[in-house]
Each structure stands twice: as structure tokens, then as C-alpha cells.
């Protein structure tokens, strides 16, 4: 996971491009997603979270670029002069719906009994993209719920492997308690060297992972259906304040 290097300020050069036919300008080094958001153009995202390194794994932010047959992830693609970006086409909408449906089919997402219902980015995106059923057969895997931590629970049934928890713990909290074990369809989030979360020697109990988690995979103990309100921490502010303190 390579963080995108910070934008070099000395080469702060303004580039012009079009997004959905609209002329926009942004600084060289910015990504298509940053340029779009700065101009109030919505591109759906799931693994991306402002303040964390972008890894482009969920593929929801795929966009079309004129002159290129393939699709490009907006969160890790830098803008170029004269670029013509399209963020909404029938092809992109179909792919995005497919991604959401595949995520639902892969594990056991039961919104009706989920702590995060009503505050879940997967549920919201299904609604926004018009996913009203799952066309793929669901897998119904048998997955564990790790409730060994004093305050928090990890429910693998709801995990979409966005790795926001891994990144926030490593990059912001500096503990790197979380990582991913196994590969492909068998991938799972794990604490330390695959310890029960409650036995983790590195976890500081800060709860950042819980609040950046887009679904009900990480939640606070003692909450019932729809009660887990995620408070997304203002990560860029947090990081900026820390840099000042270190001087």
C-alpha cells in the first residue's frame, strides 16, 4: 500500500481538464477524484477516505477518459492537461451496480438486523445506484464474530475488505494493529499476528477503525440494530494539527 506522495507545492501548476463536459481547473498532482469533489461533481467511492492513503481497490470510482479504452480509478489517477473525464455513463453505472451486488453476495449483509443500518455506506450506495436486489447467487459463508475486545466488535460477516481500518490504524494511529490475512475470497481482517482483538498487544483502543469502517463490520459493544452511528474523524485536520505539534 503506497501512499500517494503529497502534492509538490513548488510545482503548483494549474491544469485544465473537462469533467462531464464541464471545464475545470485543478493543481497538477491532484487526482481526478479531488478535482471532481472540488467542483461538486459526485463520484461514488467506498474504500477511499479523505486523509488516508488511496489504494483504488473497490473500483467504484472508475471513470472514462477520452482516448483510453479502459476505465480508470479516479482516486489514484492524476489529472493531466486537456484530459476529458466522464464520470456517469450507462456502462459505469452498470459496473458500479455490479460491484455493490457482488459485495452484498460475497458475505452475509443483513441490513434489517445490522447495527449500522441507516449509517452504512454500502447500504447508502445500493440505494443511490438503484440496486434493488442482488442478481448474483449469495455465498452465505460461515464467518466468525470477534467480540473479545472490551469495547468493540469485529463482525467478518459485514466486512467488505476496504482496509480503511488497516490504513487508519497504521497511518494515523501509528499502531498497525490491523492487517489482511489470506488471499482472494478467503481474505480476512486480522489483529496483530491473527490474535483475538481483545488479546492484541498493539491496539490502543482508540476506536478510529470503528468509526472509519463504512459498514457494520466494526462497531461498539452494547448497541442494537441501527444504533451504530459512525462519526467519521476529520483525518486531514487531525494530521495537520499533529504536524504542527511535532515542530
Amino acid at each position, binding site marked *: 500500500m503506497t501512499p500517494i506522495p503529497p502534492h509538490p507545492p513548488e510545482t503548483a501548476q494549474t491544469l485544465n481538464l473537462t469533467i462531464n463536459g464541464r471545464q475545470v481547473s485543478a493543481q497538477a498532482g491532484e487526482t481526478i477524484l479531488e478535482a471532481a469533489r472540488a467542483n461538486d461533481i459526485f463520484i461514488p467511492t467506498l474504500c477511499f477516505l479523505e486523509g488516508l492513503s488511496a489504494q483504488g481497490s473497490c473500483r467504484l470510482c472508475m471513470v472514462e477518459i477520452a482516448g483510453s479504452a479502459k476505465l480508470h480509478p479516479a482516486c489514484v489517477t492524476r489529472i493531466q492537461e486537456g484530459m476529458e473525464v466522464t464520470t456517469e455513463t450507462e456502462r459505469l453505472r452498470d459496473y458500479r451496480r455490479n460491484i455493490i451486488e457482488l459485495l452484498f453476495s460475497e458475505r452475509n449483509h443483513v*441490513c*434489517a438486523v445490522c447495527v449500522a443500518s441507516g449509517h452504512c455506506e454500502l447500504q447508502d450506495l445500493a440505494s443511490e445506484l438503484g440496486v434493488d436486489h442482488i442478481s448474483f447467487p449469495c455465498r*452465505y459463508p460461515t464467518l466468525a464474530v470477534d467480540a473479545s475486545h472490551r469495547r468493540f466488535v469485529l463482525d467478518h460477516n459485514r466486512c467488505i475488505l476496504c482496509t480503511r481500518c488497516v490504513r487508519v490504524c497504521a497511518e494515523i494511529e501509528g499502531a498497525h494493529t490491523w492487517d489482511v490475512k489470506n488471499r482472494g475470497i478467503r481474505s480476512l481482517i486480522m489483529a496483530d499476528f491473527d490474535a483475538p482483538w481483545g488479546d492484541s498487544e498493539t491496539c490502543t483502543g482508540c476506536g478510529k477503525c470503528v468509526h472509519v469502517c463504512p459498514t457494520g463490520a466494526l462497531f461498539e459493544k452494547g448497541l442494537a440494530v*441501527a444504533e451504530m452511528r459512525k462519526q467519521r474523524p476529520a483525518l486531514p485536520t487531525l494530521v495537520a494539527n499533529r504536524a504542527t505539534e511535532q515542530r
Partner: protein
Amino acid sequence: MKKLRFATLWLDGCSGCHMSLLDLDQRLLDLADMVDFVYSPLVDVKIFPEGVDVACVEGAVSSAEDEEKLRMVRRRTGLLIALGDCAVTGNIPAMRNVLGGQKILQGVYLEREHLNAQIPASHLPALNEHALPLHRFVPVDFFIPGCPPSADTLFAALGALVAGRAVDLPALTRFGA
């Protein structure tokens, strides 16, 4: 104008979606002006008739009997609507799918019951290994997610259907709503 022949069916669900239909309260009279209720757990008709225009099906398919009913309803109905999350995704009944039908019966009826533990079998359809959404068995024309979809959602959806208007369902309901 001839009224639409309207039916509802209740498979493996909690009847919450039918309760939402009852929650229409005085708007049930408006619904009765729009459609003829020809079959439903809420009306006293025993046999699902031929030539139904619109059928709303609540619940997942959990047994061969459910599947048979659903296929019969599909044959006799113009527009089939999956009503609520159980019909749309499997939802709560499908939570047992990680264990399978037999294991869940054992867990509920044998392992937790100390007096005369037995799995009820007579006059009951055998449970399938998986509870599955309707569209795994028959083509479904519309999906109304929600657990349950609210009375307002149902009224808006059915009203739009009868009037031939488009309706923005995602704005009204979602999975788990």
C-alpha cells in the same frame, strides 16, 4: 376503467409486509377503489385465481411448498412484485443459510428442548437447505426492498403502478428500511 385484479401471497416472512399494507389505514379504502383484492392472507379466499394482474409476494422461498406456490402465482399473474427484503434478498430467513436447514432444526428443536425433543414433521413442508429470494426461482418484475417497506412506500408504489406512473423507489425505501 376495469379495476386491476390484485393479490398478495405470504411465504417465509414474518407478515410484517402485510402489516404495512394494513398500516395504510383509511387509505385501504383508496386502494380498494383502485384494485380488486382477489387473493390475500387478509381476505377470505382459499384458492389463488387465474388472471391476476398484480401480485405482491412477501417472504423468502424456504420449502418445496413455497416454491410450488410461487410458480403457480407466477403462471397466473401478469406483474409479480417481490415485496420486502425477505422476498428481495432472503433477509432474516436466509440468516440460517450459513448453517443449512437440518442444522437449524436440530439446534432449535433438539439441542435446546429437554422435554420430548423432536423435530415437528407432520403436516409441515420440509425446510430447504437455503432460504432464497424469489428471483432465484421465477422472473420478478419489480422489487420493493424494506423490512418492512412502509405503508407510505407501498401506497406510493401501488398507486403509481395502477396509474401507470413512474415512482422513485430508492428515494422511498432501501434494504433494511
